[in-house]
């Protein structure tokens, strides 16, 4: 494979990493921008993916594959949202330490998947097999465009497009709408928001619920292309999304770039078998740590100004100045 082919391979294959990371990190962004730190992203992903997969498991052929996938995605989204209510309630109404409910949700989701899977699978096991008929071999017409067609319109899942739509919508909502303005105010200075009549708690609920919806969705988006059996894990992608969120400085475009960066590094990490890389003669170990090491190094040189929402992580106390 020549360099161009290698490059094409890398770019094409970073998509399955970067799309779910983008979606979930954007979810985290809405939550943190409203003032609630959400370390439950991992658990919500698992939870959302579970219910999406359960649907596919029970009703694989009720509708054409793409419709089935869309319904499953909606189910993942809703279940993620419902699940995140628990985090919202604890962090907002109970003013609890936001790590507590986040950690609890992470634990719960993993165990709950196993519990449910055992109830529904005939052998009472944790893995749920599903018919994966969702790959789009080629999008008509668009797939014929040179390069772009190969990159974006062949061998794809609708989730790729969904991810891009979500990115655009998220940026728009955050920066161009009243909701976005108010949400950001609540994450920076809730007392200020309160003093101009914004219902801080309501906005924070909205932020957490959006994060739940996107994380739930992102869970399924991650799982569907990579396997035909879901065992109730998203292998740490929720935490990686958290890292992408911080790396992306809580801003949609930068999150997207951070996810792309991380996705690219992940592909490189797993492409050590390509002749281009074997020819370099570098030990596989270095490929394996590439995503994590480069992230650390990049952060070392880009973190001097943190753009973290000022009030994120603190329960809103109207009396505090």
């Amino acid at each position, binding site marked *: 494979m020549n360099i161009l082919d290698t490059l094409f391979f890398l770019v094409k294959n970073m998509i399955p990493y970067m799309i779910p990371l983008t979606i979930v990190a954007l979810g985290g962004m809405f939550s943190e921008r409203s003032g609630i730190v959400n*370390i439950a992203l991992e658990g919500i992903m698992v939870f959302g993916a579970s219910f999406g997969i359960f649907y596919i498991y029970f009703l694989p052929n009720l509708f054409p594959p793409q419709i089935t996938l869309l319904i499953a995605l909606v189910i993942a989204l809703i279940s993620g949202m419902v699940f995140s209510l*628990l985090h919202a309630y*604890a962090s907002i109404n*109970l*003013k*609890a*330490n936001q*790590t*507590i*409910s986040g*950690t*609890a*949700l*992470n*634990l*719960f989701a*993993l*165990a*709950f998947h*196993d*519990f449910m899977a*055992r*109830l529904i699978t005939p052998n*009472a096991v944790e893995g749920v097999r599903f018919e994966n008929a969702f790959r789009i071999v080629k999008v008509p017409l668009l797939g014929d465009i040179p390069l772009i067609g190969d990159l974006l319109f062949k061998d794809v899942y609708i989730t790729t497009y969904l991810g891009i739509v979500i990115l655009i919508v998220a940026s728009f909502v955050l920066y161009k709408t009243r909701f976005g303005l108010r949400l950001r105010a609540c994450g920076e200075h809730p007392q200020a928001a309160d003093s101009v009549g914004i219902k801080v708690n309501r906005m924070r609920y909205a932020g957490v619920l959006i994060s739940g919806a996107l994380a739930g969705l992102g869970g399924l988006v991650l799982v569907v292309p990579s396997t035909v059996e879901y065992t109730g894990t998203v292998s*740490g992608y929720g*935490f*990686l999304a*958290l*890292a992408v969120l*911080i*790396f992306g400085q809580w801003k949609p475009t930068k999150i997207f770039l951070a996810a792309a960066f991380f996705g690219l590094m992940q592909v490189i990490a797993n492409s050590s078998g390509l002749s281009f890389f074997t020819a370099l003669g570098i030990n*596989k*170990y270095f490929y*394996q*740590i590439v*995503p*994590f*090491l480069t*992230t*650390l190094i990049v*952060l*070392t*040189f880009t*973190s*001097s*100004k*943190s753009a*973290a929402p000022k009030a994120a992580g603190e329960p809103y106390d109207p009396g505090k100045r």
Partner: protein
Amino acid sequence: MKAFLAKPTVQKIVAALLSIFFGLIFGFLILLVASLLREKASYPFDAFYTIFTGGLRYTGLRGFGIILRFISPILLTGLSVGFAFKTGLFNIGASGQFVAGGFTAAYIAIKWTFIPLEYLWIVALLGAVLVGGIVGMISGLLKAYRNVNEVISSIMLNYIAMITVSNLISVIKDANNPSRTQPPLARIPTLGLDKIFGSNTADMGIFIAIAVALLIYVVLEKTTFGYELKACGYNRNAARYAGINDRLGITLSMTIAGALSGLGGALVYISAITKVFDSLLVLAPEGFDGISVALLGMSNPLGIIFSASFIAILKGAGPSLARSGFNDEVVKIMTAVIIYASAFSLIFREKLGALINRKGTKS
């Protein structure tokens, strides 16, 4: 009685007990639901009893030994996370520090045969403390000098440590099995606990862990050093203003947190019980258990001794659940609910406080 209940410590303990109560109730409901839906899972009451006793109803003394052995690592990772919390940092990197420390201990206990065998385990523990500390220190330095969020750096370091250890296995690999390390030559002394519990499980590690918890308590609450570290955590600028080296403080906090997790790793990998490293790329769960333990123990070292024991008991019950037709996820669900319920403790304490005050004004 009133004065007793008014004490914050007492209120915290009562709140924690209530959380556990809620968790158990919820767990029981889960058992009931499962028993109604699944043919095999037909003994919810038995299962509940099993969980409640940590499986000791079946496992007896030997099970107790296993529970003791479960306590030590998560007690230390719990301390690691809790210590960082107290100094204003979130150490989500306990997992990486844990394996780094554990591997170092194993390496020393296998390779450093030039040290007399009876001291080797001590050197191995110290090595683990050192290397765990270094991993923590990286996060600390990045935070202190480059403003890198410690959450993200420690997530990255978790993976780096895991991958590194997986690749280093060849250095101390088992001749018959290239994917595993050899068992260590030197182990932590059992102090006769193996005789008491009838199996090679509990060892001196549990005492080391508890002693370290007490030490951390004293350091945090009673010493100038703890005062400095907490000041850095609560308000870095004020600490600087007061002449405390805030960067050093943050670095030291993460270093100590890392060292604690590292020691936790050593307590597993050179313990009486043989756990060897394999090359599987899985993050060490003990690190994440540490977060639960720290939260449930409210980051207080004494509370952490309690919460680590409690979670170890639940963990110990896992295998015995099969006897009643259940699996260990029930226990995990319960743990999650207990931690979630502990989020209510603030509200609960307020309510309790109000109740006491109301009674006070009446009389």
